[in-house]
């Protein structure tokens, strides 16, 4: 490539580069004043074969395109950390404990409707997959967790999920009020607000 390049080759290279559409041999030749462009096309195709850009023929028309193995360069993924929403976290937990579950089951456990996007997020994160359809009327889609889910949460298997008793022992199943009472007792909070609203004392008044 050190010797000066042939003018036709340079012209063909530039014309194809600047063209807004793939060009046929005839169109190229006409554009360059009727010269024969085939040898230049062949030489260029060979020159660009191993490069980041290739010269290719498609349906009799020539154009430059990104080398197929570099196609990923055209699309760069930029990852942004985002916290999973409360709803999505609950769905994920329910799926993990009850899988495979349908959306209706998830909703019945959560007690609220689940937005379509919530499950999409979990699938996008790669933690939940569609595990088929349940063989009941309506054949609802059922969901299950994935290998990536186990990997992300450091679980060898779903059996490693803490059982209900573990959750209870950790206080995670306590109703909110009891948790408050205990916190109030431990912290030495004066009993006044509690006693004041205690229904039992009110009932004994005449």
């Amino acid at each position, binding site marked *: 490539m050190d010797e000066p390049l042939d003018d036709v080759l340079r012209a063909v290279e530039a014309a194809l580069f600047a063209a807004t559409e793939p060009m046929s041999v005839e169109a190229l030749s006409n554009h360059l004043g009727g010269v024969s462009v085939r040898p230049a096309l062949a030489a260029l195709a060979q020159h660009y074969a191993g490069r980041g850009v290739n010269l290719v023929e498609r349906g009799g028309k020539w*154009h430059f395109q990104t080398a197929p193995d570099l196609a990923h360069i055209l699309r760069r993924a930029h990852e942004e950390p985002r916290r999973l929403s*409360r709803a999505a976290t609950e769905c994920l937990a329910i799926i993990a404990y009850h899988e495979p579950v349908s959306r209706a089951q998830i909703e019945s456990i959560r007690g609220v409707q689940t937005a379509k996007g919530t499950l999409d997020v979990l699938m996008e994160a790669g933690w939940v997959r569609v595990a088929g359809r349940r063989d009941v009327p309506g054949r609802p889609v059922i969901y299950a967790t994935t290998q990536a889910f186990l990997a992300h949460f450091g679980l060898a298997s779903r059996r490693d999920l803490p059982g209900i008793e573990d959750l209870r022992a950790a206080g995670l199943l306590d109703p909110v009020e009891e948790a408050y009472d205990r916190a109030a007792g431990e912290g030495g909070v004066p009993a006044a607000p509690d*006693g004041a609203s205690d229904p039992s004392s009110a009932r004994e008044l005449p």
Partner: protein
Amino acid sequence: MSEEVAPLTGEPREGALYLAFDGWEGPLDLLLDLARRQKVDLKSIPILDLVDQYLAFIEQAEALKLEVAADYLVMAAWLAYLKSAMLLPKEEQEDPSPEELALRLHIRLQRLSAMREAAARLMGRDRLGRDVFPRGAPEGLRVERKADWQCNWFDLIQAYGQVKARGTPVVHMVRERMVMTLDAALARVSAMLGVTLDWMELREFLPDSAGDWADLRLRRSALASSFLAALELAKQGRLEITQEECFGPLRLRSIARG
């Protein structure tokens, strides 16, 4: 730039001819054009010659009954002044001197000339889209924003715990707790009032803080019930209540029955 100064062209407008100085971008440009025709270095142009040429040009336009734009006339007037000043003997010249004014005019002409040449050289470069071309159909580079979802082990387990807690039917159990009922308080206050005629503070009616009565909640209950009992007895005319200041101690005294 043509050898000759562009001919005066005009078109009829309301009886007069309107001078379209299309060839020049203002009086300074016309002066520069006249200077260039002298084909000498701008720095060494005899300013008097230049002034004469400019004035002659404007006179010619006026002779043709062409309307000359005001700024060209203002320049003509200024140049006429400059010329007359230059013709005066040195000692009669005013400050700033005509040489100084002429030098300033020279500098301005040079600067304009320099920019005119620079513009021409700029326009003559290989320009993108005219002489050189970018890729006609670039594929384009896209950046896809992807969320890297964050959720940790504790969030997950806690969420499940709360779902379960929320889903479990809540049974409300009223806890049994020790209280002093109003009846008990009425009996106790009445009995204690019977044994003294002195003022007693409300707190003195409470049982001693021992055993069950050490419980803060029970003591509060006793205090509240005793207070209500005192009000009830006052209503019945069996005792009087006094309080000397806000939130001060409440004191009770039996009303002796006649």
